[in-house]
């Protein structure tokens, strides 16, 4: 093992000083999600708002990062500007390996820099540089400059924010290495509030490999499963966009602000269509041979006589849902062009698309007009959406400033809360049924990744509340075991409990290997306890009326079943948060 404690770099941006702390707790929380929660409890002030200078922004990796394939995520933990409570957001790219080779298990950022700054760290490097000249710069422009300013091409991560983050939008993401994101819950606003435009991590350290034959043998075993079997094929073939057609087929794909769940116009934006028409190449997170990142292109005629420019845009299922079906856009190039604007603004694509879908329906219903939206919003019209994205990221007027804090915030002022597609935060692209709606509305990150409610809906048409809630709770614990390792969740079939135990054992983490399922349960409790301490009451989350009027493959949503599911799930969450550690 590299170490049986956590080596954490704590940066005080206000003072421009840092210290390396060795923190115990490896055998209690493992790393990743557990480490994020542990550090949040150590450094945060739960009663103070998200933008109090003392509040930490935490990046944490796991004990197997660098050792095994697909251990390539980083967990970002912070108090969210979206709901002012503890949350997490995850991203891949080069973030995890760069932190590993910079020789840190976690990075904790506190305070506020006196001017717009960039933090640069490596195993023998630490600098906070003034980058005031980057104020207002979009993700593309700042990325190009940052690559020029700092060393380590290929062996570093560059995390940065766009105008949305600087404007403290609760939908601002942290862009990681151009094509990956800490997308949800407003991590970009936390960086912006700390006056931090970018974080560059140079992975210039190294470690001795575990002795003996077991580690390389096990590595090869995992690597073969990843590359030589069909287990990962769906992720590198069409990728997650394959779900567009399949969910549309079963009446589970939200269209035009969830006014429908299926539409024959889907043909223009299926995974197959993107692969045939738009796919330029694949990319990968460092340490993962799967290559699930699908990069398409948009081109733009900027002058007569066929003068074109082109840009590359990574696409996935969720962004196609939010900028495609949710906005009624059914042409793949138009979908990518909206995504491209969101990328440049540094907005979370899912949240921003869903917010604009609400704004469009609010326009249709006469609740708002061009006075608020500046450009005329209409389902299917991509040019206006591209401009609206710039206004949203730039908080161009009171309306967009409010909308950028969350759709329900805008609905409070303008009306239309009943058709806001918000389940704790703007919905993910699954109109699969009651279990998913109850799950996203109530779950820890309000994310489709918290637990597989969308998959449960597709396999079960019986109404068994205890069975469904047991699934959500147990599936969350299983996923926490992976996120404590910072494994990509795509690898969940490979990294089952037995395999994780073998991997941990092979690199010397024998205690973790023996107790990981137990640790996952404790981290589950710790995360809930921590979130509840920052003000979360799962009973207070409302599900807007729109979700009760949805038709899925099972028929119309059963309002009573949905209400009872959510109530029971909330009870179990509160019980988890109140329970003692095992």
């Amino acid at each position, binding site marked *: 093992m590299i170490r049986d404690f956590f080596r954490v770099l704590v940066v005080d941006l206000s003072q421009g000083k840092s210290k390396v702390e060795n923190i115990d707790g490896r055998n209690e929380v493992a790393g990743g999600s557990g480490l994020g929660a542990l550090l949040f409890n150590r450094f945060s002030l739960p009663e103070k708002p998200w933008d109090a200078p003392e509040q930490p922004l935490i990046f944490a990796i796991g004990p197997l990062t660098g050792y095994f394939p697909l251990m390539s995520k980083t967990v970002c933990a912070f108090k969210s500007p979206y709901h002012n409570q503890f949350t997490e957001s995850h991203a891949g790219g080069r973030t995890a*390996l760069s932190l590993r080779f910079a020789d840190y298990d976690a990075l904790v950022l506190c305070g506020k820099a006196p001017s717009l700054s960039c933090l640069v760290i490596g195993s023998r490097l630490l600098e906070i540089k003034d980058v005031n000249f980057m104020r207002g710069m979009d993700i593309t422009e700042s990325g190009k400059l940052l690559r020029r300013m700092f060393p380590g*091409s290929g062996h570093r991560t560059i995390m940065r924010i766009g105008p949305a983050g600087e404007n403290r939008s609760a939908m601002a993401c942290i862009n990681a290495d151009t094509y990956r994101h800490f997308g949800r819950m407003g991590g970009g606003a936390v960086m912006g509030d700390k006056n931090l435009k970018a974080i560059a991590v140079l992975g210039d350290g190294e470690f*001795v*490999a575990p002795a003996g034959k077991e580690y390389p043998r096990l590595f090869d075993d995992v690597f073969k499963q990843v590359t030589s079997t069909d287990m990962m094929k769906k992720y590198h073939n069409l990728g997650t966009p394959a779900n567009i057609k399949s969910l549309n087929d079963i009446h589970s794909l939200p269209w035009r602000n969830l006014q429908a769940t299926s539409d024959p116009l889907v043909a223009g934006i299926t995974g197959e269509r993107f692969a045939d028409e738009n796919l330029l190449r694949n990319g990968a997170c460092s340490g993962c041979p799967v290559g699930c990142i699908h990069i398409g292109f948009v081109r733009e005629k900027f002058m007569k006589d066929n003068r074109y420019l082109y840009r*590359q845009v990574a696409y996935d299922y969720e962004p196609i849902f939010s900028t495609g079906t949710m906005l009624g856009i059914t042409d793949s190039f138009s979908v990518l062009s909206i995504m491209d604007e969101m990328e440049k603004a540094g907005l979370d694509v899912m949240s921003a698309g869903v917010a604009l879908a609400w704004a469009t329906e609010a326009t249709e219903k006469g609740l708002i007009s061009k006075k608020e939206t500046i450009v005329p919003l209409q389902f299917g019209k991509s040019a206006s959406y591209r401009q609206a994205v710039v206004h949203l990221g730039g908080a161009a007027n009171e309306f967009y400033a409010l909308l950028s804090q969350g759709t329900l915030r805008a609905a409070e002022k303008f009306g239309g809360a009943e058709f806001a597609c918000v389940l704790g935060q703007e919905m993910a692209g699954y109109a699969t049924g009651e279990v998913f709606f109850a799950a996203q509305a109530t779950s820890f990150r309000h994310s489709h990744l918290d637990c597989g409610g969308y998959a449960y809906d597709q396999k079960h048409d019986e109404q068994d509340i205890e069975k469904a809630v047991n699934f959500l709770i147990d599936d969350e614990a299983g996923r926490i075991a992976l996120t404590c390792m910072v494994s990509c969740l795509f690898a969940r079939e490979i990294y089952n409990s037995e395999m994780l135990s073998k991997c941990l054992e092979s690199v010397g983490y024998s205690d973790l290997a023996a107790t990981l399922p137990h640790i996952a349960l404790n981290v589950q409790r710790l995360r809930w306890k921590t979130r509840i301490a920052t003000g979360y009451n799962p009973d207070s989350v409302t599900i807007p009326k729109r979700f009760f009027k949805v038709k899925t493959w099972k028929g119309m949503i059963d309002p009573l079943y949905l209400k009872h599911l959510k109530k029971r799930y909330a009870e179990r969450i509160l019980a988890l948060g109140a329970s003692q550690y095992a």
Partner: protein
Amino acid sequence: MKILTTPRMERCIGCHSCSLSCARLVHKRISWDISGIRIRSSGGISTGFEARHCLACNPAPCSLVCPTGAFSQRRGGGVIVKKKLCIHCGKCSPACPVDAIYTDAQGEPFVCIHCGRCVAYCPHECLELTDIPLRDSKQIPTGDEP
């Protein structure tokens, strides 16, 4: 005589599996630097990747400047490395015209030895261990076979 070549780098997805395998299997390290092949983004990540590795010069400038024989000419191109002879003088790395030699914080140089162990770990077959015809080596100083 075989050398490592990178004929299909347009396919590279930047996973670093090659570098990590070299570090793990050849140098017994966990690293993406301590490796005979290192992946860099080419003009920014959006335009793809390039591999930094030994192109099997013959004669190899790095071996010519090595004062101790730690780097000696390999038949067919590249160098044979004898770590015990290395005094960490740092002359080899700047002598390389293609920046293929990595020097760690202690001054130890690492270069591709054309063993080909990385090839199997590339998911897109970017890499290849290729037979090359031996060039006239009468005038070329040679080292021991590995």
